[in-house]
């Protein structure tokens, strides 16, 4: 099965500062990659997904952006953080398109002060 690594695990940042969260995947090639955010401790909101290098689809308008510079690397960024960007960010990977099994990384907890 796949292994998804995320870092940093915890981050406290001031409003207006930049952000970079990284996700790397082991055990598969050419996966679909996803960034989710969990703000309220329950629901998962899909932010971005990617089906290949340099291909990014955004699900919601926001202050964040994503990039996929390598096949198994997915990065979530912001130039200037807002208070509302606080939350738990989860990277996920799936091989095999729509019928493949989705696996999650450990998550990155972001607090914007």
């Amino acid at each position, binding site marked *: 099965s796949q292994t998804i690594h995320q870092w940093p695990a915890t981050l406290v940042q001031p409003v207006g500062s930049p952000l970079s969260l990284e996700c790397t995947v082991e055990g598969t090639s050419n996966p*679909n990659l*996803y960034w989710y955010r969990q703000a309220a401790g*329950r629901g998962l909101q899909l932010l971005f997904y990617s089906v290949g290098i340099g291909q990014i689809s955004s699900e919601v308008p926001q202050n964040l952006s994503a990039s996929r510079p390598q096949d198994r690397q997915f990065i979530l960024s912001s130039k200037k953080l807002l208070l509302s960007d606080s939350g*738990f960010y*989860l990277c996920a990977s799936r091989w095999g398109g729509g*019928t493949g099994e*989705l*696996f*999650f990384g450990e*998550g990155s907890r972001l607090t914007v002060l």
Partner: protein
Amino acid sequence: GIQVEQSPPDLILQEGANSTLRCNFSDSVNNLQWFHQNPWGQLINLFYIPSGTKQNGRLSATTVATERYSLLYISSSQTTDSGVYFCAVNNAGNMLTFGGGTRLMVKP
């Protein structure tokens, strides 16, 4: 898009009790997964079950695709079963749609 509803939203059990969690979805699916989010936030894969029945220890799941629902059974619950259980489905394209989750607390 497809709608996914989970019930109950919250559940409190005494250790050793059994429970059934339900996931209803509004359209046909080609992928259904159950996840457990532990108190530390980690999402753990429980079942990949677009149809049929599977069992893994004290947990089992059944998906009746023609009637658009899936059930997760937890038997002899333990405190470590506490957390949030999510159902997620895929009916087209590359995205899974998640339900709102069932928050389970198992008391010793």
